[in-house]
């Protein structure tokens, strides 16, 4: 199959950039929606030995066929095709994640803030929300215990906040020392992959030292620094080693479009 490599969307690039953060051989808890798609792409593409688990209980999903589309929900029936274990939430979020066996998490959120805290609860204030969102699902459970968080969401001003409207999932909280003060273990290196770029966080030791602020690390092809800076409502830190991310390869794009199952995941207009 030959495809036009210049013809891809920013949403597709977001999924590919998210997948590129997933490492081969690591154990990962994967949230619903675009994270399931990104992690499936990583598993098919460069991380065949990652442990792919979702919170409702399927542990170590290995797709039985390359013809299968990526799962959409965390209890998708296709996740039992090739899983090593079909457990429950106590196994997945309890023992696997809180027990300290999950090396990474791939999560989506409605908002992220300057210190990497995620919000899936509401926009506005609790008493008078502009919009109530579904709630945390397992994100809060995961953010408290996982070694490293890869988050993903479109780059839009309403999603990137100096302080999240509601912190459902702890990142670095208010800055250095925040996690320790709250009673949480260090975490990182965290990443946030968007429709324009990839961010990291300014801390070498999981939140004890450094500013713990979001740092622009990689721009997507064709995206300018100014475009990102004008979207972010605070004075964004930019890495001294800022680079451009490689565009999608043919293999990544072909795989992604197959896994997306005719656009079931990347609903146009939403991402």
């Amino acid at each position, binding site marked *: 199959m030959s495809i036009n490599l210049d013809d891809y969307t920013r949403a597709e690039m977001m999924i590919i950039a998210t997948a590129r953060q997933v490492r081969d051989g690591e154990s990962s808890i994967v949230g619903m929606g675009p994270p399931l798609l990104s992690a499936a792409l990583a598993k098919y593409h460069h991380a065949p030995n990652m442990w792919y688990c979702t919170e409702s209980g399927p542990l170590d999903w290995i797709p039985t066929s390359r013809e299968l589309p990526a799962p959409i929900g965390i*209890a998708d029936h296709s996740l039992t095709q090739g899983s090593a274990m079909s457990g429950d939430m106590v196994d997945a979020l309890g023992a696997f994640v809180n027990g300290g066996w999950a090396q990474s998490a791939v999560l989506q959120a409605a908002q992220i803030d300057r210190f990497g805290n995620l919000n899936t609860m509401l926009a506005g204030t609790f008493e008078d929300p502009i919009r109530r969102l*579904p709630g*945390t*699902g397992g994100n809060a459970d995961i953010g408290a215990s996982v070694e490293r968080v890869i988050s993903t969401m479109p780059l839009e001003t309403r999603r990137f906040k100096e302080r999240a409207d509601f912190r*459902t999932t702890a990142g670095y909280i208010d800055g250095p020392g925040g996690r320790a003060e*709250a009673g949480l273990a260090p975490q990182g290196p965290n990443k946030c992959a968007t429709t324009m770029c990839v961010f990291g966080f300014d801390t070498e030791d999981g939140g004890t030292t450094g500013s713990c602020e979001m740092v622009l690390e990689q721009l997507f092809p064709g995206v300018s620094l100014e475009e990102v800076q004008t979207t972010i409502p605070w004075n964004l830190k930019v890495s001294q080693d800022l680079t451009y991310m490689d565009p999608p390869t043919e293999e990544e794009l072909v795989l992604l479009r197959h896994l997306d199952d005719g656009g079931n995941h990347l609903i146009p207009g939403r991402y």
Partner: protein
Amino acid sequence: MMTAHEAVERFVNDGDTVYSGFNIISFALTNEIIRQGIKGLKAVAGSVTPNVTMMSIDGNVNRIETGYLSGTLRSKPFQEMMRDGRVKWNDYTNMTITLRLMAGGLGMPFICANSFLGTDYLLEETMNHSRSLKEDRRREDGSIAPPYAVIDSPFDGRKALLYPALKPDVAIVHCQRADEEGNVQVWGPQADTKWGLWSSKNVLVTAEEIVPRSVISTEPHFTIVPGFKVSAVIHEPWGSHPSGLNGYYRADREWAGLTGAGMTTWHGAREYLDEWVYGTKNHADYITKYKDRFGEDLLDNLRVKDTMAPEQPARYGWR
């Protein structure tokens, strides 16, 4: 063995706390609760699903404790009721609801998890917001118990977060198969199902298939609660339609879309409930009506074809 009608009449009362199911939903029992006009239920589950939206429209459910509103917010009536306080709730997580059910099942007063450390769940305005379940948490001395609490561990002095046990009055769930004694067999991702059943005083189960005890006993590892824990077992083919059942049928996405679309407005919800819930006698009648309206093919196409039967089934034996 009884009918869904008898089971709901006997075991579901106004004001009960009901474990409403996470990923194996009994729409057969959901519809029956609506038909019988049970009022003021509190729905609890790691995630609540569109069956809870349906039960909220006529006030069958008016309180919720959950970690995730799955699909329910597509409903404008549901959003409106959350805003004006007709639906009250407190927020938890997928895992902490599961652990709270587990604590209830194990007879523990509370359970510990660190999920809310460093988050806004610990703010007073989150725990006791104006539409929260403060009244449900009122103690005998009149004070309000918190929905969860941070303590310093008596063992090492570190912060620990406690969540109270959940003990629902009744659980409603669908399963792949059960026998007449009520031994419930489930496979596939189970989320919080097992602990929803162990923690609930009464357990109502609709089963896709009723099988002899001898079938149960050849694969006892699929039994999630034993028969004595189950108050009513009901034979209900297509009992989780329009949601799916692992190994039997896929979710009816078009129909779920119709249901969801119905629930998005008050008018749509009224029409849907009047036609498909109040307008049917029971779940078999609902399925017959569906076939009459849309033809047999639509349902048949949902049946799972590749059932992945084991080449080497588990073997038990002792001599």
